[in-house]
């Protein structure tokens, strides 16, 4: 289970990492802290099961990254969960149209995040027992 976290804020990052280590302990998390870093080809053709993308990134915007992900063959079908601290209808609309699969405004409650992750990765307990499993 490979999770890509595109987020630069350490508080949010540590929370996400805590969530995954608690409920999906066998998942592998890769963190990229800026859109630029990502677009420069840091993705090394990995196969990710889930991408969590913050919209307010330094450098390239979350929208651009999202579109790039959707355009690339390797990531075309990977679920992208967009998170943002600037919750407006405009942002929500735009990111969903840019290809995001889900939208969670910050600060999020654990239950909300788990519900979304469960939708794309299966339930946590299933993961625990099954170990790693590719999509």
């Amino acid at each position, binding site marked *: 289970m490979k999770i890509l976290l595109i987020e630069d804020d350490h*508080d949010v990052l540590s929370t996400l990492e805590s969530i995954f280590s608690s409920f999906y302990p066998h998942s592998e998390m890769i963190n990229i802290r800026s859109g630029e870093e990502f677009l420069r080809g840091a993705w090394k053709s990995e196969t990710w099961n889930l991408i969590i993308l913050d919209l307010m990134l330094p450098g390239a915007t979350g929208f651009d990254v999202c579109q790039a992900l959707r355009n690339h063959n390797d990531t075309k079908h990977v679920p992208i969960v967009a998170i943002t601290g600037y919750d407006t209808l405009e942002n929500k609309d735009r990111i969903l149209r840019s290809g995001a699969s889900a939208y969670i405004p*910050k*600060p999020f409650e654990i239950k909300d995040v788990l519900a979304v992750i469960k939708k794309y990765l299966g339930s946590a307990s299933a993961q625990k027992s099954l170990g790693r499993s590719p999509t």
Partner: protein
Amino acid sequence: MSIRQRLGVVLVSMAALMVTLSMFFVVGGPIMVKRFARSMNAMDAYNLVRDYRSALSRKHSSLKIYLLVGESQGLNDFRDFSRDASNAWEALIKSPDLKLTQNLNEIKRSHESLKKTDEAVVDLYQRGEKAQALKLTDRDLFPQYEKLFSQVAELEKDKRNEAAENFQVFRKISERGVVLIVLVASAALVIALFLLGTLYRAVMRPLVVLRTGALEFGAGHWDHRIQVPAKNEFDTLAQAFNTMAENVRQLQLQTIHMERMSTVGQLAGGVAHELNNPLTGVLGQTQLLLDRTPSEQPEWAQLKKIEQAALRCKRIVRGLLDFSRPQEGQFQPTNINELLLSTLELCEADIKAGKVHVHKELDLSIPPINVNGPQLEQVFLNLITNALHAMDNGGSLTLKSRVTSEELVLPDRRIGHPPQKRPGPWVEITVTDVGCGIRKEDMTKIFEPFFTTKDIGKGTGLGLAISLGIVRTHSGEILVESDGPGKGTTFRVVLPLSKTQYTEAIKRKEPSPRYENPAHRR
């Protein structure tokens, strides 16, 4: 005295002075001329009389010589002089001035009889009757001459005196006239200068003050006030300037205020957004802890409190972001009633859940008005939601819309100004509930940001503040009435309507079409 009055006085005074001066000439002139003429005439008369007397005297002398010497030359002389005297007499009696003399007839008689006697004497002498001639001369002629002489001398004297008198009078009048004219002219000049002087001062002093004021305003000193030391048109002008300056100052203050609010808003937005990241950490980690802490343990309760506090922070930040975000939507002709109805639909679930009965009285003749639809929807949503929250155990919600032409007393947006009367027409939307009402002391506060009477955790206290802001952007106002706790509340949103739109609404009105609450509602 107003400038206009002053000018009037000056003009009238000048005119009066001119007229007075003219009168002097018009009236005094003829008088003087008459006197002078009379004097001249008297002089002329006197000269005529004097000429006559001279002629008479020469005649008398020549006769005496002739009578004495008896030469024919003497007779010729006498004849000549006699003729002269006659001519002089003719001239004399022709004079218009002398015609009026009383004793002229007497003199005439004397003159005539003298002539006869002259002839008689000369005739006697020529016939050689010298002694007779001399006798007649002594007895009649010379006495007659004497008589005539004295009469003529009398007349001469009279005329001379008359001439002198008249001339005196004329001179006196002239002198007096000149003095008077000089006096009046001087007085006129002094008065004129005085009036012009006061006029000049009445104009220049305020003008200087006004000029200074205008320069101050030009330099941007809008708290300068023009004090004109007069109670005339300049005062009115100064007041108008002062009013204008006050308005500009208010506008300035308001602009600064708005800019500040905008900056604060932007700042708030930035801060709010920044807060969301650490808040994510707090909320997330707390909930993770809660998940793995048994609820029996004391730490669980404390963790729960942290979670609630974090959730409250989330709501506050949410409210702040709502307050500060740039406004969405555009101004477009919109049907207000449709907007109301669509907002109601959004609240359907809550209405049903709250067991609230909705009553609608919408005036369908209201024409589309230029509003920002999404924003007004937010306002209606806010008001309806507040109404629903005020009625915990069910109740009734009444929505009304109508046009009205009444004049309303509305709060003045300018800082520190009392409420203003604003004439209609208006579109009025009311949202009435029968819920918990608003306390009198809270009435002014409810529109303040972050003011809420709801329990902690419910509501951010920003809804009405945002709604009021939106409605004021539409040049409207939100008014609230509540009879007190437990007696329900009515919120009135008034939006300005143009006269044309109002007329259109009146025209559209059929016998009161009302959208009543239908029995079956989807």
